[in-house]
């Protein structure tokens, strides 16, 4: 079934594309998710589906995979018009999908997980040799007997890919596959995808990362607000032209100017903390300082102690620990979140809804969440006018798209809510700001605005600590970068002395069970 390798050069398309979408339209009560979308993918083609968050990429892929039905439009599979009712039918046609969030049972092993997900009935023991064979053939080393909870995110993704490949799909859909991978794991994944395409498989690659698309994909379809805003051959484009298709305007990507750092504002000394649950990570002997006027980045794949480090810094829950934390010259490791805030700590948490903001409350009420000391509460009475004014100012300064300051937080898109939360914290003029995954799931334009705001805050003399999985982000804004791996933090090195490659190696060097990565660290 794998024939007609199209390989790298896609100059002559086969006469009948493998998948053709014509005029796909899908309307939800609040939004027109897809509006007359056309798309064609040939055999052996790696086709990028690009677009910012909320552009309609996921809806379109759910339609192809039979999870959702379009309101109008048609789907042709190898030249025949089809109606895809269900994922099971999509799989029978030969469509496989690797989701962004993996649905694996942590307490089962690889073979058991895959056996559960396959449409055919087969015992895990009988499946194991087939898993081994597919894994070997495509350079995806996994052990069928390993328990999933012991695997890294990259390895879990391999399990998902192998699960799809076992069904010999003709079209593989990959939804933002690299968002959780280290640079080395990304390269491995790309090797595999290229090999699959060379054998004639079609791949639909959903992403908003321009570099990746340019290095991997033959063709690209760009969605903006539910419509196709253009198609391109990514290799013939530069980042700026691709971004313009995606965002609709030029991006301002001047690198921030370095600045002289001042006194130490935040300092951890030999900070250790035991893991609080069996799947948590213990922090071991963490030493870190952040000075006034600098941005320090903490790189690393989630699950290596990020959550625990943030909890220790924010004071949301105070656990038994060794070592100390100093904030603006005061020892704070026994103080609660409110007291640390009073000393000048600002915090942008990773979860927006439910932690950074109360979903059912208005933006004005959400300003009050951290603004009690900023004139919004007097003698225990809420100053509603002040809270509203503060919310309005944040909305204006950070270009938050919302009805008004009375809109409920849950009605905002993820990116807009993040702009609001970052803006709210920055407008409180913190002396130290913690930001966790500040642009996770945020579109390019908003990400840039947030980056600019963090740099401006730094320039005003604040100390900023950014914890992020996105290396590009850290290299864009940070003055120094440290790497968190298995609860240990490396020394923070100036950005100019680091390469993405070296940080990637630090990230994987001691990560549990990462195969294919060389353990020696390029310590710049």
């Amino acid at each position: 079934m794998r024939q007609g390798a199209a390989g790298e050069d896609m100059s002559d398309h086969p006469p009948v594309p493998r998948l053709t979408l014509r005029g796909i339209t899908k309307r939800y009560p609040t939004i027109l998710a897809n509006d007359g979308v056309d798309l064609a993918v040939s055999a052996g083609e790696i086709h990028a589906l690009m677009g910012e968050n909320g552009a309609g990429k996921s809806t379109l892929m759910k339609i192809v995979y039979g999870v959702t039905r379009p309101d109008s439009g048609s789907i042709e599979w190898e030249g025949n018009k089809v109606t895809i009712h269900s994922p099971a039918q999509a799989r029978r046609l030969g469509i496989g999908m690797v989701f962004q969030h993996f649905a694996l049972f942590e307490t089962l092993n690889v073979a058991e997980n895959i056996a559960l997900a396959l449409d055919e009935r087969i015992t895990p023991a009988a499946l194991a040799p087939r898993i081994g064979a597919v894994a070997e053939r495509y350079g995806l080393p996994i052990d069928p007997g390993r328990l999933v909870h012991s695997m890294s995110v990259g390895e879990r993704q391999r399990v998902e890919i192998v699960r799809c490949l076992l069904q010999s799909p003709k079209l593989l859909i990959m939804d933002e596959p690299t968002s959780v991978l280290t640079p080395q794991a990304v390269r491995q994944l790309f090797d595999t995808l290229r090999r699959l395409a060379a054998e004639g498989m079609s791949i639909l690659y959903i992403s908003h990362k321009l570099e990746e698309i340019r290095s991997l994909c033959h063709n690209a379809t760009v969605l903006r607000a539910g419509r196709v805003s253009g198609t391109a051959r990514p290799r013939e484009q530069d980042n700026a032209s691709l971004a313009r298709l995606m965002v609709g305007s030029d991006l301002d990507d001047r690198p921030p100017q370095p600045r002289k750092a001042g006194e130490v504002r935040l300092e951890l000394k030999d900070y250790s903390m035991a893991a609080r649950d069996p799947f948590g990570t213990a922090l071991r002997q963490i030493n870190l300082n952040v000075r006034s006027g600098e941005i320090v980045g903490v790189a690393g794949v989630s699950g290596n102690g990020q959550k625990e480090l943030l909890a220790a810094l924010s004071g949301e829950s105070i656990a038994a620990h060794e070592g100390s934390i100093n904030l603006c010259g005061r020892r704070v490791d026994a103080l609660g979140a409110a007291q640390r805030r009073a000393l000048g700590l600002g915090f942008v948490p990773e979860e927006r809804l439910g932690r950074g903001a109360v979903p059912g409350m208005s933006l004005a009420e959400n300003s009050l969440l951290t603004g009690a000391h900023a004139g919004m509460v007097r003698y225990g009475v809420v100053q509603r006018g002040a809270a509203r004014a503060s919310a309005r100012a944040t909305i204006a300064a950070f270009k938050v798209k919302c009805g008004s300051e009375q809109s409920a937080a849950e009605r905002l898109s993820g990116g807009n809510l993040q702009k609001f939360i970052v803006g709210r914290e920055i407008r409180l003029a913190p002396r130290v700001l913690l930001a966790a995954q500040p642009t996770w799931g945020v579109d390019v334009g908003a990400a840039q605005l947030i980056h600019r705001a963090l740099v401006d805050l730094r320039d005003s003399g604040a100390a900023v600590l950014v914890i992020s999985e996105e290396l590009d982000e850290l290299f864009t804004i940070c003055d120094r970068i440290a790497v968190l791996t298995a609860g240990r933090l490396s020394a923070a090195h100036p950005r100019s002395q680091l390469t993405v490659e070296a940080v990637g190696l630090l990230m994987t060097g001691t990560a549990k069970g990462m195969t294919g990565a060389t353990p020696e660290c390029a310590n710049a």
Partner: protein
Amino acid sequence: MPELPWGPFLWRLERRAAPSAAMRIAAPLIAAAAMLATSFLIFAFLGKDPLNALDVFFIEPLNSLYGWGELLLKATPLALCGLGLALGFSANVWNIGAEGQLTLGAICGGGVALYWGDILGPLALPVTLLAGVAGGAAWAAIPAYLRTRFNTSEILVSLMLVYIAQLLLTYLLHGVWRDPEGFNFPQSRAFDERILLPLLYDGQRANLAFPMMLGLAALSWVFSSRLFAGYRMRVGGQAPAAAAYAGFSERRNVWLALMIGGGAAGLAGVCEVVGPIGRLQLDISPGYGFAAIIVAFVGRLHAIGIVLAALLMSLLYLGGESVQLGLQLPAAVTGLFQGMLLFYLLAADLFVGFRLRRVLRVSEARA
């Protein structure tokens, strides 16, 4: 999304773009209407003329000044308990034991009235009321302490304490506090008249407790919508992680919610014994503390709504008594109506966030 085959059409439950504000207000009214419609059927089924039965249930009790007084009298403890509970419910603190706190309020207030009523003179009534508040709050302090110290469920603890409170009252009334001239009935001496709450109007039984309740309702509205402490409690209820993020103490919320809820229920209890009852006896409350849970939710956890819901619930009590007398229906009718009201309210609440849409096209097979 669930699809219901219903007649020739397909009905689809669809999430609304925004929760419907109109529906939020309409839901209690729809629930009340559905309760009326169902009761119509039930009366018909029981062989009573439904129109007559509804007249006996809902109209007859309010035919007199005395009837209106009874309405306010019974609404008062319901609203007091409901207001206190609602503050807790909106802060994720599930005090189910208002009935027990009410009983303790009656015991403590009654104790003061029995033993120090004469000595205190003009201060007797205020001190009695305060003792009731303190008693209810102290009883609620037990689940508060256990939750903040040992992380126990306040739902179970507060509920179980109801039965302990009632047994404590039984013990006192069969023992040390029994009226020596009461022919061995388990009840205390009648309180001195000077300790009783003054009536609003002669010829009926509603007393000063009703305007006190209205004042407290206004206070509770100010507390939850204007004070930072109320805001902290709402944040703690709606998004505990956001409350932790902002540095709001969960302990403080739990204590505050249970102290206010227990104090309000205690006040309701003492107002009963120094009001219409006039002494301590075994039956202080026909389940006001439990019915107040329904009152809090039917009233949308909002002060004005709770006062209105308490009046409705009070009418259900009066109607239940009225049909017992007039139509020889069982006493369980009151509970049946209360249950139906809550049941229909929860059902109607679904349509705050969702709407039902008719799908004309017959859908194809779905996997």
